[in-house]
């Protein structure tokens, strides 16, 4: 029996990645460096990749490190993971 593969974005409560469409040139370097393989190339050439499996992101930053265009891709931890900092205090 032959089977055709399909993909459906599997939603997650977090959005690890966002793209700046005006900067991203759709080179797919981020897609091909991600060891977790959460991205799929866009069907339209030149467009940002599809984050198909956002929940599987390991938040390593390798995709951002591989991107040749600064600012084209952003990585953000879920809101609950924002570490707090305050101005230094002297007793």
């Amino acid at each position: 029996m032959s089977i055709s593969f399909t993909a459906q974005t599997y939603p997650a409560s977090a959005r690890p990645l966002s793209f700046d469409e005006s900067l991203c040139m759709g080179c797919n370097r981020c897609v091909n460096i991600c060891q977790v393989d959460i991205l799929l190339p866009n069907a339209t050439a030149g467009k940002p990749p599809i984050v198909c499996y956002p929940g599987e992101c390991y938040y390593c930053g390798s995709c951002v490190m591989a991107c040749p265009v600064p600012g084209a891709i952003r990585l953000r931890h879920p809101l609950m993971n924002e570490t707090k900092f305050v101005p230094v205090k002297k007793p």
Partner: protein
Amino acid sequence: MERQWPYENQLGQEEVLRCDVLVLGGGLAGCYAAIAAARAGQSVIVVEKGATARSGAAGSGFDHWEVACTNPCCKISPKEMAEAFIDEQDHYSNGIAHYIECREGYDRLLDMERFGGKIRDTEDEFKGAAFRDDETKLMFAYDYENRYTLRVWGSTFKPALYQELLRLGVRVLDRVEATALFTEETPAGKRCVGASGMQVRTGKFYRFYAKSTILTMSRPARIWLFHPDLVGLSEFRPTQSIGSGHAMGFRAGVEFTMMEKSVKGEFSAAGRSFPPYSTGNNHNTWYAATMVDARGVEIPYVDRDGNELKTVLERYLPAKGQKFFLKGGVIDEPKYEYRGPETLPFEELMRRGYQLPFYADLSRMPEEERRVIWGMMVGEEGKTKIPVLQSLTERGFDPEKDMLQSYGTGWQSAAFLAQERQLFGAPGGIIHDWDLKTNLDGLYAAGDQLFASDCCGFAASTGYYAGRKAASAAKKTDFGQISESDVAKEKERLYAPLYVEDDMDWRELNMAISKAMQNYCGGIKCKDLLLEGLHLLEKYEREDVPTLSCKNPHELMRTHEVMDILTVSKMIIQACLLRESSSKPLCFERSDFPAMDPAKDRHFITIRQENGKIIAGHVPHDYYGDIEEEYEKRNQDYIGGGAQ
């Protein structure tokens, strides 16, 4: 929206490949194994599930390289250091691998430098700092007197290793998951003759014939800790590293030890913790940051005798009368002999009126100590360059003006429950001989797949060593036979979920397994409880695995992972049943056998599977003999110049 799969559909296709040395897993250990074998003139294939250039626990970086005892500034001999580790871990330690690490680790760093990785402060950014040797430009962490652990620019390492593999003509198969080992019976016993794999984007099947095979697929995860929504934050190590190597090894009859050991969670578990290294703390990457309480009162550091330290520099020096202290990945609360400077214990701080929350305040540290923690260590450490350094900087954090909050009571960045367990620190794994060979002929292992493994230096040096030994064995053997029925069975197992329509998602099974493991194999264990757990896992295997369903090769890979997690979970429960006593160093508590570390059980208990039956073994702690003598007996070729 349902979309078309963007990659080719290669379902039903099979590629048959042959090589002298087959490496399964392209992390640090796997890359170094492949390099050693290629240098020995062997044809090598690396099978890597992710992308070798950034895959594995050290893919995005790491900041310190432990126990490089042969570096020109180190004052501790490899033997002394390895024996200290063994003693510190009450002999539940991997003496062979630790000695290799202490003896050859620095050679691997020099290799790395040749490949283009950065191991010294070539730009003189830290000239004159107490942790730097101005002649060699090497930089040290922890013990500035004895200088055994180096600060390194680990974010440069994996891309450099990948390039070196290509340069050496190693065939790197990225996006291929190894799924099973093939064995044949010989008069001398079972021998590994190859493996199978699946392309995780196209579904193509691979059959590998190899004279020697090396397992470097890291250690199990997502056994107790699983978050179905934020899967990638469930654990400390990468999403795709869940112990497939352990699972396929166990199915093939490989012998393991210390699988009964697990620790209360220390890192990750989506909801509970913060990004590793992103919170105020004074351990590991952040050693020895200045810590303050809510009022801004500094928290004192003390030496092992409780004497308060007056200067920052003293935090990096042994106590009076102490030769050296131990710190690093697996060192938690060291014995007096090896205990280094530390802030006062939490309970004592509460007694003295220190107020929560605590913070790391780098502004009070000497300028180069601040810069090396925030900017070099946080930056080079795994998962820090973008998600911590860049992200906090963008949010306005300035280490000269701000302090970073701590959570929980220590460096874990969260507080866990007893049943929320992990294989963290130095957990169980494959037991091996002085060649890093498993109990199966032709099969070797390295890195985090070995028992009581820990860090990057360990992975790189054992990888290289296993590559060397596997290559020399390959030269003396021929290819074996892979049974067609084994291949057919494996294909059926692998592809079945694609043919099940709209049934159970892999996440549902992973969630069920981790709930079962928390319930039946949690903090306190006993026979009846463990057996109940085993029965439940067997039911999952019998009745629920056949209902797993998915729609493309990526999801199929995740489905295979959970099938492997199930195999490993069963092995862990079986291993827990085999140890009929409790043990402090193994973090192992049995209510039906409360005696702690009785003499009769102070040894390695091993576990393997033969024809579906569990076989236990008993191996003395010192089975490897005198580490230096035994090493030198077997490595004269390397000592005599093979070290390059």
